[in-house]
């Protein structure tokens, strides 16, 4: 995929964004550096998913602006934003084949040119799914399904990738494989990645930066190295706890 290089990461900026439903209030003011992988961490309910939904356009801020690559996308609907997103589950349409599911990333009405088809085949080969084009999602393992979702990310070639705990329901070794795949794809496409995870080990493995949320606000943000050398911010240390080295071995369900 020679044209992969054309997709460059774009900075994601939330400018004094506020958002609330019910009695929960969120307020974000943060910039995600272009082309970097940033781990978004924090306790349940701290606003990780909400932050991603605001960037993706599933939620509209009450005030403030959302910018991607400097362009104001606050009012833009999800499909008009230069963003791909991978959820924990339901990334695929159960009645469509692997190839069709990936093809939807190119054309939402599945009108594909021969060039599109070649790209789809290449993306599937890249994620290790060659030969499984005609399968239905139910004939795939959990890890393979997420590979299909990543293939679609590849053919969409958007400068921003949002990952909402995509590997949380996979086993430890499978998760490691997927993280390595993510790193490889990132090295090729150079997109900006916002990666929500509960696993400090995952963040440590792939992230350049960490943004730590608490109570709907960004508590700390900085280079990942600062967080994991033991001298990290106190709130973060409290969150990952003393036994963080053991907890890395089981996958947590999203809470």
């Amino acid at each position: 995929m020679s044209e992969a290089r054309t997709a460059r990461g774009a900075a994601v900026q939330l400018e004094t964004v506020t958002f609330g439903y019910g009695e929960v209030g969120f307020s974000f003011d943060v910039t995600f550096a272009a082309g970097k992988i940033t781990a978004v961490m924090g306790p349940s309910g701290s606003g990780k998913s909400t932050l991603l939904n605001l960037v993706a356009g599933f939620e509209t801020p009450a005030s403030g602006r959302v910018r991607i690559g400097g362009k104001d996308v606050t009012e833009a609907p999800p499909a008009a934003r230069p963003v791909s997103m991978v959820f924990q589950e339901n990334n695929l349409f159960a009645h469509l084949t692997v190839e069709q599911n990936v093809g939807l990333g190119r054309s939402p009405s599945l009108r594909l040119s021969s060039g599109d088809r070649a790209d789809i085949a290449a993306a599937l080969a890249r994620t290790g799914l060659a030969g499984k084009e005609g399968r239905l999602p139910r004939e795939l393992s959990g890890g393979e399904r997420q590979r299909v979702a990543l293939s679609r990310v590849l053919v969409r070639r958007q400068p921003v990738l949002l990952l909402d705990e995509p590997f949380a329901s996979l086993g430890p070794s499978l998760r490691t494989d997927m993280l390595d795949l993510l790193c490889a794809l990132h090295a090729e496409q150079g997109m900006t990645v916002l990666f929500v995870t509960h696993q400090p080990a995952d963040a440590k493995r792939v992230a350049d930066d960490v943004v730590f949320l608490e109570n709907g606000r960004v508590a700390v943000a900085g280079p990942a190295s600062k967080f994991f050398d033991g001298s990290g911010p106190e709130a973060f240390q409290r969150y990952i706890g003393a036994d963080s080295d053991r907890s890395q071995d089981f996958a947590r369900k999203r809470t």
Partner: protein
Amino acid sequence: MSRSYVPRNGSYVAGISRSRDARVTAGLAALAFIATLIGGALLGLGVEGAGNIAGALAAFDPYLVRVARFTLWQAALSTLLSVLPALFVARALARHPRFPGRGFILQLFAVPLALPAIVAALGVLALYGRAGYFGGLLSSLGGGQWPGIYGLSGILVAHVFFNLPLATRLFLEALQAIPGDQWRLASQLGMSNVAAFRFLEWPALRQALPGVAGLVFMLCVTSFTIVLTLGGGPAASTLEVAIYQALRFDFDPARAVALTLLQVALTAAVVAFLARLGADMTGDASLPVAPRRFITSSAAGTALDGMVILLALAFVAGPMLATVAAGLRADLLRLAGEEAVRRATLTSVVLALLSALLAAVLSLSLAMGRRALMLERRRRPVLEFLTGSGTSFVLVIPPIVIGAGWFLLLRHLSDVFAIAPVMVVTVNAVMAMPFALRAVQPAYDAASERHERLCAQLGISGWTRLSLVDWPGLRRPLATAFAFAMALSLGDLGVIALFGSDTVQTLPYLLLARMGSYRTEDAAGLALLLGVVCLALVLVADRLGRRGKEA
């Protein structure tokens, strides 16, 4: 070829927002259609009543009071006779999960729901009528000629035939909802049958009782076909039948208005009462697999339960068997060759197909509209209610009332009999819509739950979304809705009784005509045909619906 990340064209923005609006618009259009149908009928009644206030007031005479009293009286008796035995039948069925043929009995108990009322009425006549299979037996028992079953007794028998199985299934559902752990606990505590009934079964039944009794009462208050065919005269006439007679025979619009207003007031009162009890207007039981029971009955108890079940079975199966037997005695080949029968069959099928199509479209529009409304952060509870659970309330406006309103409104403008097809199609579609919505809405909501964000992210919207994403999941529930609506429309005698004529006849209308001219054998043959077709349709609907749930 490089792709830039900016939207490929500006229409994306509009595409998304338009598709959101389109779903809401579809829902609102469906609501507007229903509102027009009902509103037009009320307008017709209003205009007629306002034009002749004195006449409408004068119509509130002793006859009308008598009719209203009889309406309530037969409904109350029917409810009592259906619900009380149903308590025992349900308990017996719940206590013996391995009763031989239990599954078959439960399926048989679902049949009356699918059977057109006129078919059941004929079955009751074939069994208990003066010339019925039991006529001779009943004559010799009573000493003297059996007078037949026309009148209150016929109405009651038919109503119980319909509602005893329904109530039984609903009560059984309540009983099977008792958690298995409670039964384990009861057996550990050494509870006897009586104690288990008192502490486990009765509380569950008592909770279901008001809702079930309310539903049955409602069905009996608005019953038209049964009373028309089995009432046998002015002594046993209900408001709905009186409306029909006022319009079709006496042509007394003022009286029709008075009767209709009374009927609307009556049903509104019953519904208000029911709503407070939390009854479900579309009443239909879904029965899970019977849980294991830990309390064993005594031999005497088992024998008693077995007898209760067999009695109920005989009562429900009797008219069905009589329908089949009487129908087979008819000269079916000659009937099939008759021009009138062929025309009526064709008319029935075409109207039912159109009605089912309309019902499916209405329910899909409402389901989409409601879902789209719920996805918006701004809550609009009134619209959500109207497109969702509120739709059941159309069931409280009897088809006869809608028909009467339009009849009165349109008779000044055109030939009322010419619009018969339109009325039959639209009214039956709206009446089938709440049931159709029950199949379509959960499927649509579940699909949307899974796909909504993905579709928004990938920009799949509008027609593409309907055909590519939603259709595969909706095919089965829509087919269920379609088949059910078609069965309902095929068997209906309400609207066509008002609007039918020599030029537009459906099978039930033809059946009624043959009964009226004492061609009983013809009627029995037609009833068999109609019953079999409706039953087949409902079976298809049920089969599709079930497979849809498994997938």
